[in-house]
């Protein structure tokens, strides 16, 4: 993979880790805690800066570079989690 520092280092992501990345990247957290069912596009703080930091963290940690179209296609954190892990396994 082009962006991987060393692709052998990458392991599957856990859903909690994805929630952690979102928690760090969002300026403001919603009243209901984030979980797999959270529809990220509905979050008030899901702006371009949040997208940027989520893309960056996932690429750094898992070697999967998400595109704008990926976020548009998917809806919940669970979708995103499955999508990233499928890509990690294929790498």
């Amino acid at each position, binding site marked *: 993979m*082009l*962006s991987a*520092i060393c692709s052998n280092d990458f392991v599957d992501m856990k859903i909690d880790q994805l929630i952690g990345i979102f928690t760090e990247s969002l*300026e403001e957290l919603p009243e209901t805690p984030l979980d797999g069912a959270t529809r990220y596009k509905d979050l008030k703080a899901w702006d*371009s800066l949040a997208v940027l*930091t989520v893309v*960056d963290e996932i*690429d750094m940690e898992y070697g999967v*570079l998400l*595109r704008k179209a990926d976020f548009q296609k998917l809806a919940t954190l669970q979708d995103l989690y499955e999508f990233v892990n499928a890509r990690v396994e294929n790498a």
Partner: protein
Amino acid sequence: MANSSFSGVRIGGVVTCVPTLEKCIDDEVDLFGGNEKQIARLKKTIGLNRRRVVEAGTTAVDLCHRAATRLLAASGVELGQVSAMIFVTQTPDYLQPCNAAVLHGRLKLPTSCAALDVNLGCSGYVYGLWLAHMMVQAGGCDRVLLLAGDTMSRLVHPKDRSVAPVFGDGGSATLIERSDGGQQAWFSLGTDGSGYDKLIVPAGGQRSPKTESTCLDVEDEDGNVRSSEHLFMDGAEVFNFSITVEPKAVRELLAYADLSLDSVDHFVFHQANRYILTNIAKRLKIDLTKVPMQTVERYGNQSSASIPSAMCGELQAVLCGAEAQRVLLSGFGVGLSWASAIVSLSDLSVCEVIEADSAQ
């Protein structure tokens, strides 16, 4: 990747001229709909802060003119000794003739001097250095004057948050000359033209000439306003491009030059923004003290002038010193295009930032 290496060519000096007018994101609360928290977040996360912009009527030729005059005087180079000049810009005075010819006339350079423009932005300085090295090493050109300057602030819509607070202006002049000091230089350059529309001014060229409708303001889904005659940047895609291409380009150039990352004293990247710079450094595991990155917070993203600006503003003392510094220069952006070089710098006759209205 287009790789090449040179010996017997050196950089003699570099000067960067910045406009005196300073703008700061703190003063642009209206642009962000009164959202001061968002401004604070942009400052903290991306590092957007101050930028220098020209007044209407001042162009890259004017900034580079000042930089070139200072450079030639400080280097003791006579006009008749300049064999060629290259002007890197995407904000030329005219569609025709090229900026290099305009400045050639203003500087009163001899008619024996070759002059041409290079239409590149953030990667353009390194592309220009590469051409200058080829001209000198091929023989016939003992001294090449490289100008790299842009006034991107004139191309952004003031109500476009994705670009207006990002770009600043600047003009640089660099002297490349024959040397018997045995300096070696390595270059590696690339292009991905499939991304040509990620950073683009859509109208005003022959593909889409200016019309009554190309100048109409349109608000996009994020609430940013621009017309087709303004600069558009797909920030997310350009970010992805930068973090994918840059670390790889740096590693490949080091491998080509057979040098280790640790053997490089300074990494001068195109000053896009602090977030991208720290990100690239982190991916390459470079010590942040080797990566100048204050230039962008001081002057804004200066496009083709950002690398010389960082050299002048942050490495002046060390590059004018006698001890050779191994410096990796790397630019990336509009095209999409990227270019990296490893050069050995010492004893520069001049390496400084000047203000546009300072006495020469």
